[in-house]
């Protein structure tokens, strides 16, 4: 009964697994990964004149948190917020790969996906620093990020980026292309994801003290948006 109810709402075994992965990432974040523990410190520090601009901000972040924690924390943040949205792409890889290459394709995809998101997170952290530096406060940075994010969220360009997140590309199964296609899929999907969701990531980075509830709200929005079924009344044409 519960299984049918869940499946009718799009929660298949894979969906539940991805929600579990997301939950684990959340627990690690709440338990205190170094990036998120250090966020208030970093962002508080960024408000001072000690960290005026980008390169210095990056140096400060690396010195304070360290590269592994920076990359790991970013990856955790992405997994926590994005994992439930990956059911469709993972099923695409699963069904359209040779059975003995399925896990390889998924690993290549995830590697590509996380690498782009990790780079994007570093840029977003730097952006958060710069916003702190220029506004002089966490609240000011948050307000600027929220305003920019809101404008982006309702823009038609973002809607197009979101639609691209549902693209399912061709996957070759022989030769070098069999390695390249899943990797490329991960890279390109992540680019569209970043373009769609950067604002949802930037806001918790700016409002460091309240980053957990903001992240949770953002994660919920991402999950709803990505897994929501297009319904009736959306057949209005957008001519290319």
């Amino acid at each position, binding site marked *: 009964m519960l299984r049918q109810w869940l499946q*009718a709402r*799009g929660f298949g075994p894979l969906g539940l697994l991805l929600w579990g992965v997301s939950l684990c990432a959340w627990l690690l974040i709440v338990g205190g990964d170094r990036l998120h523990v250090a966020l208030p410190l970093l962002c508080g520090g960024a408000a001072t004149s000690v960290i005026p601009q980008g390169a210095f901000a990056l140096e400060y972040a690396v010195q304070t948190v360290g590269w592994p924690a920076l990359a790991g924390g970013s990856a955790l943040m992405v997994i926590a917020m994005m994992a439930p949205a990956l059911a469709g792409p993972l099923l695409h890889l699963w069904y359209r790969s040779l*059975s003995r290459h399925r896990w390889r394709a998924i690993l290549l995809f995830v590697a590509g996906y996380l690498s782009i998101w990790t780079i994007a997170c570093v840029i977003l952290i730097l952006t958060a620093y710069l916003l702190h530096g220029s506004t002089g406060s966490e609240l000011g940075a948050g307000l600027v990020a929220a305003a920019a994010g809101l404008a982006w969220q309702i823009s038609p360009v973002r*809607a*197009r980026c979101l639609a691209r997140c549902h693209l399912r*590309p*061709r996957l070759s199964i022989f030769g070098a292309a069999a390695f390249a296609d899943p990797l490329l899929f991960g890279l390109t999907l992540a680019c569209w994801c970043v373009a769609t969701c950067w604002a949802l990531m930037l806001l918790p980075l700016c409002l460091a003290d309240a980053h957990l509830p903001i992240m949770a709200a953002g994660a919920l929005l991402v999950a709803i948006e990505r897994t929501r079924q297009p319904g009736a009344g959306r057949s209005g044409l*957008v001519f290319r």
Partner: protein
Amino acid sequence: MARIRRNVWSLAQPWDPVLLWYARGVQVLKTRPFADVTSWRYLAAIHGVEEQIWREFGWLKPAEHLPQTPEFKKQDQGQCQHHGWYFVPWHRGYLAAFEAIVRAAIEKLPGAPKDWALPYWDYNSKAVANPRLLPEAFAKNVWPDGGDNPLFDKRRYGRGDGVVVIRPEDVDTKTALTDGQFEGVANGSPGFGGVRTPFQHDADRDHEGWLEQVPHDVVHGRVGGSQAGQDPNDWRSAGLMSMPETAGLDPIFWLHHANIDRLWEVWRKRDASHKNPVLSSWLNGPAGRHKFILPQPNGTRKQFAPKDMLDTTAPALNYVYEDTSDPFAGQQRLSARLRTLSMAIPGAQGVAGPEVSSVAKKPIVELLGANAKAVMLSNAPTSTTIKVDKPTARKVTNSFKMNEFTARSVPEPDRVFLNLENITSDNNAAVFDVYVGLPEGADPAAHPDNRAGVVSLFGARAATNMAKPHGGSGMTKVLEITDTIDRLHLSGNADLSNLSVLFVPVSSVGAGGVSIKRVSIYRQSS
């Protein structure tokens, strides 16, 4: 007593009273304002609507706009279900709502019958020499009441010049009716009724059932067509029936769908093992905020679910079809296949039987091979070659092993399915035949056994639109090629390392008008 939906070919031609009253009812509906939920345009827009197309085609006057009610904008427009397991129940509800509204309109006219029911267009009828012709009441702009014939529409291009030409293979119901499973599986057999889906309007995801693919899609493409001499990739050249966004505007649409609905009854009645889904997610579906809600004759709107569509004689539906006899005399896909195999393999006689057909395990579907790059179709035949993965091919070969095959309670040997993945095109009217395993340079017409099936791209344009929610992923079509693989095995030529696939256009495809991102084959083991 239930009303009888009659075969259009068993009616007097061209203007049997059933058709004449239909025309009069259509005329009444066409005079109603768009915002009226019982108007012709409102009902058609439920199937699909795009303002620019409707305006260009003259269905919206310059000063007019689509209805602005929240019901229309958020629920009613573009509600139809395609490419999934809600296709048949939703369209049954849609037809019933339409029929009730037309009947109510007719009954207000002097001398109207009280038992009018929507006729159906049986393109496989034995009553006439060529049942695939468009009935004359729809084909000519004349009718007994004078003036424009409400059943005629000039945007019915057929082969390009307005003549509708449908081949027997375009309406071959054998694949649909002889498959015992309603629900299908992704990349494998899509079943009679399609794969499990949520609410799904566009054709850019998942797999349509056999019935939706043929004859449904193909009849849409062959009737609507595109205007000769125009670019078939330009929607301005398309016929009404070619596009989901305009199909409901053509009066023949409703007779076509009545036949599709009838075929669901034929499928259900022809074998006791043919069952509709019993899952709550189908019976009470779809889950989520988008429901099936359709107008009623009194102007209200009523919600329904597939569970309300199971019995056509129930008071809410109250109709039967004139003919639901089985055109294939009880023949089943599985028993026919096993009979062929057992006759061809010495020592395996007598295998075919109900013991095997009762296998009901969840099938395993697995990729078997794919071509090297995307294929662009043109107006000339286009070929590609599928390279097959040897370890996976061995599984197919092993499924044919005699010691397994001759056991009486064994699963069926693997079925094999050709997948045309992520087809993108702006040409909704494109129709092409697909051949598998043809020798190089062979004339496809001389090898009908190698014909895998016919594909119509009804709905492709929306599935290709990058601004749509699925980013223009295109549509995927599945054709069963088990017979071809069986023949290869029986001929001793079971080397599946390279399998040729040939696409032969039936209607104008247009240069570079159709792209198939990957051509692949999947094995399905039971």
